[in-house]
């Protein structure tokens, strides 16, 4: 049995989400091959070869794959896909974009966002925003799976010595082209990779007040997140959103400030190891999932917290 993991990378190294997908492949069991597709991605291929448990790395280095355009990446994966029993990627914006296309072209179902491996054909996944867990079994010959980024401990980035094979396959479908991006400059860790996150909700009242969280985040080396309410109110951009419709996170410490704890927010953070809630409303649902709750006005409590760190 041979498993293909399509790894997200930044051309120089593989992302943490890919290590989680590799860990899910290890839980299924079998030879693990990693696909690195991109333009100028040889260095990422070398880091993938060092990941523990990887047998082979396939590097498809071509301009057609430079911006993860779904049509081109899917065509590449389908070209080699029938060699595998399972094809996995992380449940990221990129993986969610091209994987269903792969599945449909192979005429098999996709099982999205798996949170557990029961056996080689049976998997657990959250439905209804994590309010229920479904155990599902696939009868397809190839299992196409996306893996929830918080569900498995990432594979070790070192210790492996996989062979590297270059794939000379250029698939430019000519259906789409990449124009530009607006990427927030990150002075802090990425939300999905951070070990500490401090998030603000509607209680922050406006975008300027997020500066209160920034000072605490700097001291803790934390990422800053937000609830959908704060994003919808225009306080902060959507890439900061934690929740069912935003990013799914599970840091060691999650500090929720002025967040009531709507179901859709809890769906994105309730697997965090330790949850702290600061809210002046003692009946806020966030306190039902918090390990440590502080009923207080955030505009007094956060500066105090800042001073004590």
């Amino acid at each position, binding site marked *: 049995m041979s498993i293909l993991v399509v790894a997200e990378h930044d051309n120089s190294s593989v992302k943490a989400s890919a290590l989680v997908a590799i860990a899910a492949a290890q839980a299924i069991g079998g030879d693990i091959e990693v696909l690195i597709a991109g333009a100028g991605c040889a260095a990422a291929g070398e880091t993938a070869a060092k990941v523990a448990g990887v047998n082979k790395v396939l590097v498809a280095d071509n301009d057609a794959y430079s*911006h993860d355009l*779904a*049509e081109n990446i*899917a065509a590449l994966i389908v070209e080699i896909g029938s060699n595998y029993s399972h094809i996995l990627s992380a449940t990221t*914006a*990129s993986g*969610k*974009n091209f994987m*269903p*296309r792969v599945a*449909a*072209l192979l005429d098999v*179902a*996709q099982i*999205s966002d798996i949170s557990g491996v029961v056996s080689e054909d049976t998997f657990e996944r959250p*439905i*209804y*925003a994590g*309010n229920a*867990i*479904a*155990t*599902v*079994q*696939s*009868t*397809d010959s190839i299992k196409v799976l996306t893996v929830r980024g918080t569900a498995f401990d990432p594979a070790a980035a070192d210790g492996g010595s996989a062979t590297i094979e270059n794939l000379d396959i250029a698939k430019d479908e000519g*259906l*789409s*082209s*990449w*124009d*530009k*991006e*607006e*990427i*927030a400059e*990150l002075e802090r860790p*990425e939300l*999905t990779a951070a070990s*500490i996150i401090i998030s603000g909700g509607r209680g922050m009242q406006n975008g300027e007040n997020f500066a209160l969280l920034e000072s605490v985040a700097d001291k*803790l080396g934390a990422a800053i997140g937000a609830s959908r309410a704060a994003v919808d109110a225009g306080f902060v951009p*959507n*890439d900061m959103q934690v929740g069912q419709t935003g990013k799914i996170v599970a840091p*060691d*410490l999650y500090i929720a400030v002025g967040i009531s704890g709507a*179901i859709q927010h809890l769906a994105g953070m309730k697997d965090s190891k*330790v*949850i*702290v809630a600061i809210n002046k409303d003692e009946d806020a649902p966030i306190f039902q*999932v*918090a*390990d*440590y709750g*502080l*009923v207080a006005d955030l505009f007094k*409590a956060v500066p105090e*917290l800042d001073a*004590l*760190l």
Partner: protein
Amino acid sequence: MKVLVAVKRVVDYNVNIRVLGDNTGVDLNNVKMSVNPFDEIAIEEAVRLKEAGTAEEVIVVSVGASACQEQIRTALALGADRGILVETEEEVQPLAIAKVLKAIVDKEQAQIIITGKQAIDGDNSQTGQMLAALAGLSQATFASELQVGDGTATVTREVDAGLETITVKLPTIITTDLRLNEPRYASLPNIMKAKKKTIDTFTPEDLGVDVTPTVKTLKVTPPSARQAGIIVESVEELVDKLKNEAKVIS
């Protein structure tokens, strides 16, 4: 051009989900059903394309039980011109829905197909991408801005690190993210008018599509509950607990 919008009937987003005691699924008895919220955004975008003169006709399609007519009527009240129901009492999974939609796209020759980025029941986020694959068309998922040009569309997409803009050839499949627009409410006169609009009904067999599922749900269970912790009295106590009890900060 024709714009096709695919909508799904789902449990309303305000309903608290309860897992059935026998672990066969969630309780759908007497539960309010609505248009999937992301599909409402798709309807709104299509109607705006018509209002802007870009689209001549907006067709709304749903796949499922006959009760899906309610959601099609909602879309008609919001401004869609006519509806198509592909009726089946079977459980239809994303690949089967995509195959049905492909048959409708072929029949209608729509230039732009819009649907939600995911449905809030299964949270799969597959149907739009699968339809694009089966039809051999371009795709622009998680759209937060759409501009239709001559034979192309320019779409701003929400990605993990921010936004990216791509240009796709028409015909194309677009899936909506939250920030694409704010859907309107249906007015009473429009709700009355919608009752007179046509809904054509087909079965998957009429369209030559086999909708037999390949993924079987073995059981559905509640998520492991998180135990509520303690209420601390002060910021000092909180910092002390985090340092010395939870040991998550130093």
